């Protein structure tokens, strides 16, 4: 659906993205992650045909986004960051206008606009001026606009930014449902959201793709994959020293909570050391009150990838 080859964009004096290569297949929900300024919006704008790349190629459904821009754009629903809208139009009026602009056949406009209003929960504000809507509703108008021409591909730039937790949950459900019929590329900062909705994830940092895989594989890849939390009374023992001796344990940090010591262990990925910790505690007569494995999250992946690269950069 999306094919990106050696895509590079340079602004005056700085390179926003360099040599991006990726593909998004039909029906995939692709998450696009990266710190602020990593080049997510730039990439999405190029794909949406809003600006050209300096070099490289990108195509949507086989149409080059620059050379065959009109064909590419007519297969696309794009929701820009911060959702710019005409504040002086009413919701229905705006969606009618957008539907006509995107070439929805005349007799289907009313039906499509009614559908997307229903889908995005805009019924109760349909006659309001867009300028009078709250952030959450504006976001939904943007989403309804992106959906109105039943595009094959949806590109959503931070669709949940500025929403409250309930709205985020609603939008997430909506995106999941849409993923059944549409291909979706979405960028976000909210990592649990990506874990829940996306079938694949691209992590972009300083204009380069650092990782591109399914969320599960990414979690498996990272070095600091698992962690174990142990809370115990160790008596005279130091605790940390003994725990470090267990094979597979890379690092132990200790916290104190009254008499209890809280150890956070970093463990090599794929290993479960809880059984050995229990035996150690039994042998040393420690009192255990917690022994739990912490699952690595995408946040760990994100931090590891983007952080380690920051420290590498100066060299």
């Amino acid at each position: 659906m999306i094919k990106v080859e050696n895509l590079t964009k340079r602004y005056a004096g700085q390179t926003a993205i360099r040599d991006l290569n990726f593909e998004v297949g039909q029906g995939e929900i692709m998450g696009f992650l990266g710190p602020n300024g990593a080049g997510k919006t730039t990439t999405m704008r190029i794909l949406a045909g809003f600006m050209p790349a300096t070099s490289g190629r990108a195509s949507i459904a086989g149409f080059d986004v620059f050379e065959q821009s009109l064909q590419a754009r007519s297969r696309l629903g794009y929701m820009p960051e911060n959702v710019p809208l005409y504040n002086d139009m009413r919701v229905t009026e705006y969606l009618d206008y957008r539907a006509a602009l995107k070439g929805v056949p005349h007799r289907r406009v009313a039906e499509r606009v009614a559908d997307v209003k229903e889908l995005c929960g805009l019924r109760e504000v349909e006659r309001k001026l867009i300028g009078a809507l709250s952030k959450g509703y504006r976001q939904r108008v943007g989403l309804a606009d992106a959906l109105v021409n039943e595009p094959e591909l949806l590109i959503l730039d931070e669709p949940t930014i500025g929403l409250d937790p309930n709205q985020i949950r609603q939008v997430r459900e909506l995106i999941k449902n849409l993923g059944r019929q549409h291909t979706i590329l979405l960028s976000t900062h909210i990592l649990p959201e990506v874990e829940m909705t996306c079938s694949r994830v691209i992590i972009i940092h300083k204009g380069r793709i650092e990782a591109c895989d399914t969320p599960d594989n990414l979690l498996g890849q990272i070095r600091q994959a698992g962690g174990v939390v142990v809370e115990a009374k160790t008596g005279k023992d130091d605790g940390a020293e003994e725990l470090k001796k267990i094979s597979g344990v890379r690092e132990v940090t200790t916290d104190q909570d009254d008499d209890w010591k809280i150890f956070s262990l970093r463990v090599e990925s794929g290993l479960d050391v809880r059984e050995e910790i229990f035996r150690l505690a039994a042998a040393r007569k420690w009192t255990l009150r917690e022994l739990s494995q912490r699952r690595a999250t995408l946040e760990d992946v994100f931090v590891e990838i983007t952080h380690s690269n920051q420290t590498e950069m100066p060299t």
Partner: protein
Amino acid sequence: MRKFYTLLAREVRGYFHSPIGYIVVVFFLLVTGVNYYFQISFMNQRPASYSVQEAFFNNVFFWLPFILIFPLITMRLFAEEFKLGTIEPLMTAPVRDLQVVLAKFVGALVFYIALWLPTLLYFAIFQKITQQPAANSAGAYCGSYLMVLLLGMFYLSVGCLASVLTKNQIVAAIISFCAITLLFFLGLIQYILLDVSGGMRDWLGYVSAIEHMATYSRGIIDTRPVVLYLSMTALMLALTYQAFQSRKWRL
């Protein structure tokens, strides 16, 4: 074509969605109405060799509001879209750049024509009350309103170009105001500098809006200004189109 009409309808409605449209209408009709009243009062005091309609289109109270309305009409066209960021959803919809530029220009032109239509009433009311013609001939009406249209097209296209160059509406208004005023005053040079040579004088007369209006409002329809204003409008719109497309240049 349907996309063009969709864009055009939004542009025209946009004028009536914002207070600017109403402010321009009120300001314009007020000043031209007062101008009309003054002209009739003057003519009441002494015999005149010209008609009410000629007097209305050829004096400073006509030109002053005339020049002022163009920056007000055109300043928001592109600048507002750039400022609000609505240019992004607009240009990621499957529309051509040329459709957008033309829809904005024609939208401004439609508003401009709507602005002028009520002034026809001035003449109708005059004839109704005095039982006398306000103009010497039907051609005089045609000529003066044709010149209003031609000048309007040219100055609106200058305003379009000014608006596409910036995302600040005030800056757009200042650029177009300065440009239109300069163009207008070119035609005044011959009255101020009495020693301009014959060739120069001819050239200045050829671009003088005041001269054109004086000729046309007598019902004399010269084709030279038609060529001048249509070609200049086309040039300004071509420049606007290029400037609008420049965001797509591969630099």
